[in-house]
């Protein structure tokens, strides 16, 4: 993928846009089973990320992602700050030294990000968290890349799988995070963290598709 740095910047712009647009919806989901701040916190975080990465024109993707990570850790708060911060930091490390990113690199970055979230949050699939959107996304991405699909198609598969994973959190019983305090009452609500994770994967897929071919 040529212009990897420019595309990375465009992805971060798109994620910021999407977080602003969906802030109210994420907060609504969080009010049902959490404490009603996920949308506000994510929008605040990416609003802080954007001016910093805009000022980094010409720097490699890993540098942009690292700044994204430290800014999210410093501004988001809650659990989402350390979790997404860790995810972007691990992705940055996976892409370290690479200026021309291919589908194997993207897969490595996604795998590292997911492992980072699981480790920081001590979470596994089925607990009604971000992991439930990201695990199927990474699995779908891996399958598509191994079948030799191009990056744009592979990411479309990943986004579709993330969406299905997000929707699959609705009947789940939460056992991690604040939603777990509700016990049975967490059932029937879509997880806000899985939702923001889906939105991020979808934004990445959209920007890559628009820039391919």
């Amino acid at each position: 993928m040529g212009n990897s740095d420019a595309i990375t910047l465009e992805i971060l712009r798109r994620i910021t846009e999407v977080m602003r647009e969906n802030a109210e919806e994420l907060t609504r989901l969080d009010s049902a089973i959490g404490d009603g701040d996920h949308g506000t916190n994510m929008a605040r975080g990416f609003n802080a990320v954007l001016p910093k990465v805009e000022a980094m024109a010409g720097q490699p993707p890993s540098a942009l992602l690292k700044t994204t990570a430290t800014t999210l850790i410093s501004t988001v708060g809650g659990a989402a700050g350390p979790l997404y911060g860790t995810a972007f930091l691990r992705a940055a490390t996976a892409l370290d030294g690479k200026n021309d990113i291919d589908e194997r690199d993207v897969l490595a970055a996604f795998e590292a990000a997911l492992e980072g979230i699981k480790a920081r949050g001590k979470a596994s699939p089925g607990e009604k968290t971000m992991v439930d959107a990201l695990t199927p996304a990474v699995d779908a991405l891996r399958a598509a890349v191994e079948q030799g699909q191009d990056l744009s198609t592979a990411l479309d598969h990943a986004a579709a799988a993330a969406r299905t994973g997000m929707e699959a959190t609705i009947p789940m019983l939460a056992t991690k995070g604040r939603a777990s305090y509700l016990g049975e009452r967490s059932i029937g609500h879509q997880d806000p963290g899985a939702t923001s994770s889906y939105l991020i994967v979808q934004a990445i897929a959209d920007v890559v598709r628009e820039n391919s071919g």
Partner: protein
Amino acid sequence: MKKLINRPEDVVREELEGMAAAHPDLLRVDPELQVIIRKDAPIEGKVGVISGGGSGHEPLHGGFVGMGMLDAACPGAVFTSPVPDQMLEATKAVNGGAGVLHIVKNYTGDVMNFELAAELAQAEGIEVRSVIINDDVAVQDSLYTAGRRGVGGTVLAEKITGALAERKASLDEVEAVCRKVNENVRSMGMALTSCTVPTAGKPTFELGENEMEIGIGIHGEPGRQRLPLASADEITEMLVTPILEDLPFRRGDQVLAFVNGMGGTPLMELYIVFRQLHRILSDRGITIARSLVGDYITSLEMAGVSITLLRLDDQLIDLWDAPVHTPALRWGV
């Protein structure tokens, strides 16, 4: 939404500016970084004690900064954990060479952000220990949840731990007494109304005119059970029974009984609850040796109450009685 604010996004900064203006004799406040530090910190040879958490629980934690209690507090956005930068700055500012203790309420976000801050502070050569407070008996099944939440017991832990640190006890001793408080304290809360996070603009949950929520936390998160409204005596019984059974508290125990308002409860009602609490404990042969009644760990404007019982021994009584001088707790000075 009807609130005494200017703009929702400015509430924490403006609150901190107000605290700085009101208590210049006690506090140094950085409203941008969101750190509240005891005026005379760092104190050479004294363990620094810091805490932090989302805003909206006032006076916790910032109102407890001062002599005999916390050395610093890090308020996050409303109901949102603070970020590691804040805890790191606070840790550096209160480090008098004897190490720093972080008192952390058991919420996923608080624990993760304090973990990151502790790693960063250790990397800068400051010895940091952490004690996680998890006194909420409403969370029954710890294996399948994020664990019991830190609620009213946090106030008592901060007071008692701060008192021992003030006597220049070692980091080991300060950490140990904080753990001892956590092991001997249990709480449970309930809500009559929800509360509204300023940036959200509407109540976090809906509660009907004749309903109440039992087993709430302190973030407007719904509790475990919604029941028809009951009398103060019945509610007190519902809250105190699981507390007594959990530790368990036994005949002959001496306790500190803490009846806490959630922010929108008249003191009159808190005393009505205390009256019944006193009766229940007397019947069981448990002595109330010390008491605290009022709004100390709140959920914005929520109406409701939490009850906290701490089993006391001579050391804990002595440290509870020790002088304290903070914006929200002051005696013996």
